[in-house]
């Protein structure tokens, strides 16, 4: 019961605050969500500064092979790629972590590239793909969900069956199918042209496969709204369908979309890393956290730092996004709190 008092009190104290401002205040009071947000800001800043790190601190180009390069460790100059001494001595073992931010902080990968610099650059791609595919997914899902729920009839029937099929299709398999085909030829539909190696390709693919996950609950909400009195009132005033959808329906479903955004960003980033790990996501020479984990797979027992660091980046970012997402949900949906839910 105390929760009810908490959520009502600020409304009484400041009657002018709108629902979004109230939600923001509730979010700001949620300590774990704020810690997660701060962590996210740090991660984003670090990745945004990747060129600064590569150019001014590590003095390295993380995208070209550096097989004959050398590095200074404990005052001695050593090759970045050492001939393997185990077995037949055929392979090469890259230099391990030096813990010196100036050069090969986390060691090198099997092409002699600085892993720390690649991690930061890879983070830019992982975050960019996660966020933009979540945004694209939410926009498409809102559009389709509102259309299906508002108009009903055959539009709803067609869209809902479409959602059902995509929903029943295992997401990774659908993504793999689309990626395999599009990675070789690119995407050319009407005015949209995306080249085969483009980073926009995983963005579009991941956004498309998750559309039903967001659109289906939105459609349900819109159907419930359709029978509300304020909607009948708008119809009675002679408002057009477009105006009703934009001015009456959309503001009511927007909180749900906002709740989905951080959760979908985390999910999409994980999907990207899995696809990249399977070599059908981000394509070389571009890096993402998934491709770095994949690079580290062959070196797991000799240079585990590569895999561990990249995996921790994905995992921690996803944890932060999920905690923040839970906070946003609690802030926008006080009823969920009243019921004492998760």
């Amino acid at each position, binding site marked *: 019961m105390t929760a009810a008092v908490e959520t009502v009190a600020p409304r009484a104290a400041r009657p002018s605050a709108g629902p979004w401002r109230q939600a923001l205040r509730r979010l700001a009071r949620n300590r774990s969500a704020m810690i997660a947000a701060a962590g996210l800001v740090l991660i984003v800043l670090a990745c945004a500064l990747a060129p600064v790190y590569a150019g001014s601190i590590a003095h390295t180009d993380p995208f070209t092979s550096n097989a004959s390069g050398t590095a200074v460790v404990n005052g001695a100059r050593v090759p970045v790629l050492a001939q393997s001494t185990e077995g037949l001595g055929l392979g090469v073992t890259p230099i391990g972590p030096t813990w010196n931010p100036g050069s090969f902080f986390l060691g090198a990968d099997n092409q002699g590239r600085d892993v720390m610099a690649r991690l930061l650059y890879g983070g830019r791609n992982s975050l960019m793909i996660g966020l933009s595919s979540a945004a694209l997914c939410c926009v498409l899902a809102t559009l389709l969900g509102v259309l299906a729920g508002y108009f009903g009839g055959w539009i709803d029937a067609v869209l809902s069956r479409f959602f059902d099929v995509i929903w029943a*299709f*295992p997401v990774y398999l659908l993504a793999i199918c689309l990626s395999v085909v599009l990675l070789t030829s690119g995407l050319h539909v009407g005015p949209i042209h995306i080249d085969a190696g483009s980073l926009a390709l995983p963005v579009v693919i991941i956004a498309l496969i998750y559309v039903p996950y967001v659109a289906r609950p939105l459609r349900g909400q819109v159907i419930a709204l359709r029978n509300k009195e304020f909607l009948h009132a708008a119809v009675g005033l002679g408002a057009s369908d477009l105006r009703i959808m934009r001015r009456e329906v959309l503001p009511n479903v927007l909180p749900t979309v906002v709740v989905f955004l951080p959760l979908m960003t985390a999910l999409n980033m994980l999907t990207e890393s899995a696809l990249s790990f399977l*070599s059908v996501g981000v394509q070389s020479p571009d890096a993402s956290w998934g491709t770095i984990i994949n690079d580290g797979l062959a070196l797991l027992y000799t240079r585990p730092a590569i895999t561990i660091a990249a*995996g921790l980046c994905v995992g921690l970012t996803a944890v932060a996004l999920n905690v923040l997402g839970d906070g946003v949900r609690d802030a926008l949906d006080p009823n969920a709190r009243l019921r004492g839910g998760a």
Partner: protein
Amino acid sequence: MIGYILRRFGAAVLVLFAISVLVFLIFFATPGVDPAARIAGKNADPATLAQVRASFGFDRPLPVQYVLMMKHLFVSHDLTSFVNRGTLVIPQIIDAVPVTLSLVVGAAVIWMVLGVGMGTLAGAMRGTLVDPLVMLLGVFGVSLPVYWLGEVVNLITQKQLHGSVFSWVPPLGYAPLSQGVGQWALHLLFPWLTLALLYAGIYARLLRGELINALNEDYVRTARAKGLSERRILIRHALRCSLIPIVSLFGLDFGALVGGAALLTEVVFGLPGVGKLTYQALQNLDLPVIMGTVLYAAFFVVLANAVVDVLYARLDPRVRRA
């Protein structure tokens, strides 16, 4: 009930048909590259291309091509890989199925037991240490990449601590049941635990929330007023209702696992299941194999969902009327 089962499986067949059409269109009708060149793999010679064109009927209309493809896949079982010349796709998949099922079923048993156990404990012991632990595991469950966790597990059990604590862990790979149940389970133990840990966290967290909601319901108050023991209220009244969403989630996850997460786990633990097959096919863009494994996995997913819906209807008779 029988009417519901028939309707549900009828719908499943329709969905499978739709999925097969979708896969067919993705592979054969996306504009861009000649589908024959895709099927034949990288750098195919003109003779192979001509052979592919004839065998898949690329000079004929799309519906005919679809029927021919399905015939290769499901009737004559003679879809061949063009990257590994002459390898028949379907027998390869059928050989790999027991490995994938061993992995997924074992993991599912562990995560249901763990997840329901921890969730019930957390729901019943709110405010104790169990509570934040379950919440934390739940967040990790949706956040950590399963293949990465598998690699870390491998690093510890196969390399770092293999000399001491984990010297009993067999090398990566699969031991068929014919070598004895013990070897089979020993080889699958860590893959099972890796998969199960993440899912157990998700399920425990969900169940905890459901249980807390259920314990606030009127029927629980009534049960208390009747003088039932707390234990009986928790298990016979609250838990029973709270398990319904868990069951429906289980159907989706079980299917998704066969089609996705198991794929990654198989790759990391070197288990020669359908996922590993897909992975190898992806490495050399072996399209016939990818198509075969995708449709196989979709079959399992749709079947699992249908079975779960039927179980759901058994648990909750209201569903049957929907």
